[in-house]
Every structure is written in structure tokens, then in C-alpha cells.
């Protein structure tokens, strides 16, 4: 119980672009500016996957980056969570069935929360992460 409370109070993010158009990344960077101030919820952006709890993925997973994405995911210590930000990360959207694209993020690693939109607004991203934090507190996921 205490572990769940503690985990939901200090979710640290790491951001990974799997070959997107940079639109979602700009919105993601906007979401961590002082205007939205997500440090209120204890969220900090970390540089190293070893320090992070939540992997925020943007972009369709290309064939080249699929292995790298898997490796970054495996470098994170358990318990770990994944958010797919934007239409491409959710399903591969306009690039689905493209010769160089693997598909959405959930074709490579398990995803806990999806945020649709092209690109989703910072508010939508924060809402998605807040939903994930609720899930973490409820103990929906083992660990």
C-alpha cells in the first residue's frame, strides 16, 4: 500500500522518440515548461533510463529503432510503465503498413496508457499521465 502511494507520488519520466516528425516532441517539451509545472505532482524529467519510472514514447516505431526501444525499456528498473503519446505511437496511424514501419509502440513493448492526437496538446499529455498515476495508485499492474 505504502509502495503504491510512494510510486504514484514521484513518477519520473524519460522521453524517447521512435522516429516521429518532432511535433509530439515539441508538445511534450511544452508540457514540462513552468507554465504547466508538472513538478507539482512530483514528476521530473530524467536523462538516464536507469533513473526513470515512466517511458514516454512519441512517433511510429520504425524497423531500425524497434531494437533500441526494446533495449531502453529493458534498461529501466522494475516497476516500469510506458505511455504512448500521439497517434503514431498509439497505432502507427498514417504510417501503418509502411514498408519501414513496425507499427504502434504496443507491437514492441507493453503500453500502459495511450494519448491520441496529432499532436496531443500538453494538457492531453498531462491528463494521460495523470490517468496512469491513478492506475499506479490502484495497483492495476503487478509489481
Amino acid at each position: 500500500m505504502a509502495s503504491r502511494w510512494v510510486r504514484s507520488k514521484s513518477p519520473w519520466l524519460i522521453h524517447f522518440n521512435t522516429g516521429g516528425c518532432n511535433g509530439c516532441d515539441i508538445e511534450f517539451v511544452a508540457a514540462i515548461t513552468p507554465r504547466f509545472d508538472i513538478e507539482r505532482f512530483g514528476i521530473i524529467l530524467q536523462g538516464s533510463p536507469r533513473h526513470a519510472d515512466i517511458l514516454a514514447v512519441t512517433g511510429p516505431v520504425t524497423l531500425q529503432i524497434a531494437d533500441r526501444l526494446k533495449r531502453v525499456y529493458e534498461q529501466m528498473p522494475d516497476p516500469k510503465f510506458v505511455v504512448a503519446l500521439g497517434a503514431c505511437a498509439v497505432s502507427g496511424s498514417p504510417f501503418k503498413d509502411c514498408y519501414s514501419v513496425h507499427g504502434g509502440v504496443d507491437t514492441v513493448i507493453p503500453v500502459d496508457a495511450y494519448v491520441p492526437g496529432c499532436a496531443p496538446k500538453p494538457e492531453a499529455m498531462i491528463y494521460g499521465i495523470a490517468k496512469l498515476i491513478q492506475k499506479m495508485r490502484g495497483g492495476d499492474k503487478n509489481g
Partner: protein
Amino acid sequence: MLAYDLFQLIVFPGALFLFCLAFLYEWVDRKFFAKVQNRYGPLYTGTLGLLQPVADFLKLLYKEDLVPKACDRNIFSSVPIVYVVLPLTTLFIIPISGQTGLVAFNGDLIFVMFIFALMTITVFLAGWSSMSRFSIIGSVRSALQMLSYEIPLGLALIGPAIAAKSLSISSIVQWQSANATWGLWLQPIGFGVFFICMLAELELVPFDIPEADTEIVAGWRTEFSGRKLAMFRLGRDLEIVLASALVTSLFLGGAQPLGLIPPVLVFLVKSLFVVIMLSFARALFARFRIDQMIAGMWKYLLPIAILQIILIQLGLGV
């Protein structure tokens, strides 16, 4: 008597009190940093986010502890503990609840300088044992930074010792209260040099070259996770407490009783002021380049520190 000694070491001015202080100062630092950037900072964890550093610490304790295959296992697992123990041991020397430290002895100022060098060597070992390219670059940078700030730091520490004619921190504090003055008024240059060297020692923003997160991921801490990272964060918080306690004791009069106000409160107010100054510097400046840091330390800070010693010897600073 033994029971009281144990109580002092473990509970009141000892370990438990210092851990609480470390978490409190991290909260003050983050909150003030946020205020400078026109935002709230931690808000929903406990009242006003007071429990945020505790939540971060506990979360890291609950996390999986990964040990990379390539690293030197023994050094990798022992270094985080050493990193916590070193500042904690040093804090016992500094007078907090009265005018004498818990284990004050003659020459403890030299011991503090020794511990500062040892902490950088711990950081170096931490990066070196991880065997990751980012960690090694970070640890080499940290050693390079130590070579630059160590000498001005030593000279700035010698200033109050010459004035008080003693190498013990407790007697420097007593000297200041006996002469009804502060080191800050007598040696303003020395205070400035010491403050800048403390920023470099703590690897705070103008000097966060060893863990520059835009260049080398997280520097020497890159490969640490779970419990080990929690220890490093606690060690960093204790280091901030140590730095603010040192500045308070040597330059701001330390734990003086002020009328009916107990010395602990005076000490806390003064060291909180130092912590706020540290986080203000962190919020205002951008990172120096490596060459700017080295050139600045050797070309400007060192002559200024020597000038302060000369002024004291001429009787102008005392």
C-alpha cells in the same frame, strides 16, 4: 551518561535529525528554485509538498536494483554507502545544537578538507566502476573540477582559522561569538571564494559539469538505479546540509544563543539562508564550459583567495 551520548549521536543533533534536515533542505531548495522560475514546485505530496523528497527516496528504495554486467561489482555496490557516510560523519564535527560539535577535536578543519577530497574520489570511483562511457566522462570531469577548486577552497578555509588562531571549527565559532562579530564582515572576499568553491564542490548549476544532463546523460550517476541511486540522492542532500553548516559556522557566527532563542534555531535560520542563496545561484546561472571553469578558478579565484590571506596577515581583515 552513555545513554545521553547515544541519544545525541543517533537522535537529536545526530543522524536522525540530520536526515530530516537533509530532506527539509531539499524541499526548500526545490520550492525556492520553482518560485524563481515562477511556478509552484512540489505541491500535492503532503502539506505543500513537504514529503516530496521522502517520497522520492522511498520510491527509489522500492525499485529494482540493477547491476550492469560490465561493472566492477564490489566498488559499484559499496560506493553509494561511502557517499552517505562521509558527509554524515563530517556533520558530527560541526557545532549545531551548541557551541561545540559532537566529536569536536583540535584540527578538525583539516579533517573537513580531507573529507571533501575523499568525496570527490568516491564520485570518481562511482563513475569508474560503472564502466559506461557517460559515467567515465562524468567522473573524469569531476576529478578535473576538484583539481581546480581544491586550492582556493583550502585558502578560504584557512582565513577564519588564522583570525581565530585555531584549527578547530568549534573554537572558530566560539571566537566569533566572543568577539561579537561574524567572519563575513571581517573577510567578505574569503566568504565569496568559499561560496563559489562550495557550488563547485556540490556540483550545483554553474559548475554542474560532471553531471551535465544535456551532454552526458546523468554523468557519473548514469548507471545507478534503485537503492544505490537513493543513497546518492541522500548523500547529495547531506552534502548540501554540510556546505550550508560550514558556511554558517565559519562565516555567519554559527550556532550562537541569541537571548532566549536556543542556538539550534539560530543555526537553522542561518543555514536555511545559505541554502536559499545556493538555490538562487542555481536558478540564475547557466553552466560554465570546462575551460571557463578551470581558467576562472586558477586565474581569478586563486589570486583573490591569496589576497584575502595577505589582508588578514596585514591586520586589515581581522
